């Protein structure tokens, strides 16, 4: 038996390593995705007044603090036993949509496009966003602009791009001004032009990635996501729907909040990231995915015409329930398109400037669960609060955590296809990492901590001798 360690995984958010175990014939027998950091938000919040929770929980992640702000605020609102004003629901929705745009743009352009444009085997020194900027300037500029579009909306609504404290228990802390709304709407046509151009580029180049598309975590799983009553995508609201690879419904119109009824969490000693599984099928059979690929599988439609057209094209080409995780990339682009349209639609609501934006209450229930779709998938915050409003306990189930089992299987699958014998081409290593990039994991979120490390790969023979070594 020998082992390869890929350390660190780059161009993802957070800290991780990959280990690959081979037998005497050099065939891969197992592989693992180790998440190597942990901060303990489920405990450090204990004793805090619950009104502080959203902004505290925002610090779980600098890419998707908005997701945590929303899920946390919703959990607090359950404790308060309030329904927040409709305009606050809508305003939060706009911020969430903007967050999805910027986060998906980051994932696609900054993190993954180097592989897609320059090739998985391209020289590692230039295989990054700056390499993309040189080789395809328009693509890079579009990426920067799309991310900026999303971030500026967050800033206009909440005062800051990262960790805006505007989302609070009870609603939001101030209403939207007409000038801000108009500024955001003025940026929509440009944003649409850019995503259309990117989608066009992607679809024109799919033939280049056929091999990877067939190999990257391409196996049937369950899919989970929030869906509105009418079958449209839910994002910050909606009920849970779960389907299998053939479209069979395992749950529909289901209240996602009592998650302990349908989800279990397991610990593996080799990772700080817990594995969540669909309880009905047990562990480890209860494998499921969340995030863009899963969402597009569970919803009937997105809810805006142009994006639904793209969704139909996607389904025509890939089938109704595409299983390869490679298609997360395509799903992400379609979601960006939909989110931009949805932002414009929501901001055009006549009530969007209403100034009753916040409900006020103290604890009226001892417990609350808040659920929302982060860019990477379904996010749940669960708190227990005493009668004085002090948090007693918390449990968080984070988007990327749902995907842990699928990522591990994905790594094994890709390793099996591309890793063999005593030679380790660098592009092979990159492909093992690239399957992780499809999921766009947020590892700070998932273990409520992050980190980073260098990469050194050693192939050790059964006697411990170094057979081959690669460092980058």
């Amino acid at each position, binding site marked *: 038996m020998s082992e390869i360690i890929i350390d660190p995984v780059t*161009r993802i958010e957070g800290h991780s390593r990959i280990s690959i175990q081979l037998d005497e014939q050099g065939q891969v027998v197992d592989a693992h995705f180790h998440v190597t950091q942990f901060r303990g938000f489920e405990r450090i919040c204990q004793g805090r007044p619950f009104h502080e929770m959203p902004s505290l929980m925002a610090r779980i992640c600098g890419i998707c603090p908005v997701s945590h702000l929303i899920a946390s605020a919703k959990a607090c609102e359950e404790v308060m036993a309030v329904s927040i004003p409709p305009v606050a629901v809508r305003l939060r929705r706009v911020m969430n949509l903007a967050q999805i745009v910027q986060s998906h743009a980051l994932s696609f352009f900054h993190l993954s496009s180097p592989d897609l444009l320059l090739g998985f085997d391209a020289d590692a020194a230039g295989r990054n966003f700056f390499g993309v900027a040189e080789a395809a300037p328009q693509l890079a500029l579009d990426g920067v602009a799309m991310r900026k579009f999303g971030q500026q909306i967050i800033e206009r609504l909440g005062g800051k791009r990262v*960790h805006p404290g505007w989302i609070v228990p009870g609603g939001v802390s101030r209403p939207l001004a007409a000038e801000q709304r108009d500024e955001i709407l003025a940026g929509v046509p440009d944003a649409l032009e850019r995503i259309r151009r990117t989608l066009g580029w992607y679809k024109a180049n799919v033939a280049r990635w056929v091999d990877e598309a067939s190999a990257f975590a391409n196996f049937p799983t369950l899919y989970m996501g929030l869906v509105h009553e009418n079958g449209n995508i839910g994002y910050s609201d909606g009920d849970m729907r779960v389907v299998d690879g053939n479209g069979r419904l395992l749950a529909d119109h289901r209240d996602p909040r009592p998650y302990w009824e349908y989800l279990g969490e397991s610990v593996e000693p080799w990772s*700080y990231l817990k594995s969540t599984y669909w309880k009905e099928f047990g562990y480890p059979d209860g494998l499921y995915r969340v995030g863009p690929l899963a969402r597009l599988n569970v919803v009937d439609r997105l809810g805006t015409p142009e994006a639904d057209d793209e969704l139909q094209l996607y389904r025509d080409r890939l089938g109704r329930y595409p299983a390869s995780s490679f298609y997360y990339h395509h799903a992400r682009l379609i979601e960006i398109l939909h989110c931009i349209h949805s932002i414009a639609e929501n901001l055009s609501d006549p009530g969007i400037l209403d100034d009753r934006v916040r409900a006020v209450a103290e604890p009226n229930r001892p417990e609350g669960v808040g659920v929302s779709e982060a860019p990477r998938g379904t996010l749940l915050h669960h708190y227990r609060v005493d009668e004085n409003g002090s948090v007693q306990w918390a449990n968080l189930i984070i988007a990327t955590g749902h995907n842990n089992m699928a990522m591990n299987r994905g790594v094994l699958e890709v390793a099996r296809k591309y890793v063999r014998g005593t030679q380790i081409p660098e592009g092979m290593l990159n492909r093992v990492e690239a399957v992780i990039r499809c999921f766009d994991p947020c590892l700070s979120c998932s273990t409520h901590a992050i980190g980073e490390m260098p990469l050194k790969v050693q192939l050790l023979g059964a006697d411990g001798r170094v057979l081959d070594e690669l460092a980058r």
Partner: protein
Amino acid sequence: MTKASLATVWLDGCSGCHMSFLDMDGRLLDIAGRANLVYSPLVDIKEFPRNVDVTLVEGAVSNEDDLEKIKMVRSRTRILVSLGDCAVTSNVPGLRNPYGPAPLLQRAYIENVTINPQLPGPLVPALLAESRPVHKIVDVDVFLPGCPPSADQIFWVVDELLAGRIPDTATMSRFGT
């Protein structure tokens, strides 16, 4: 004229400071014209190179891997910048310090678990007794507080450093904002 070498590293943080760095938007490509990004979570160089001119470090030093990494980074960097409150004061990761790591691990891996409760290890790095700011482990040349510091502030600091000046951040940024 050779371009300067710039690196970014994240330790125990949330990546918000890196996002704020990217919030420079177009100015990022401008920086890329003046410096090579020789190591970063955003690029695929896996070994931290020697003789790096400027390294921006985000995040507190919270586990054994962070500790090893920051020492190595310091030994290969000319100017080290503590970027953001986690690196400067340990901020939110430091909230665990009065209690130590044990109650956190207990809550996450024993209590909030359906099956197989256990503490992860040894293939993942152990938590240090306390989460520490970077300058408690290695010398730091520039401090930029903020949670996160704004893109304008980060750009200004990088711009000054690439121009060969050590920026005085004393009255520029405040903790928490």
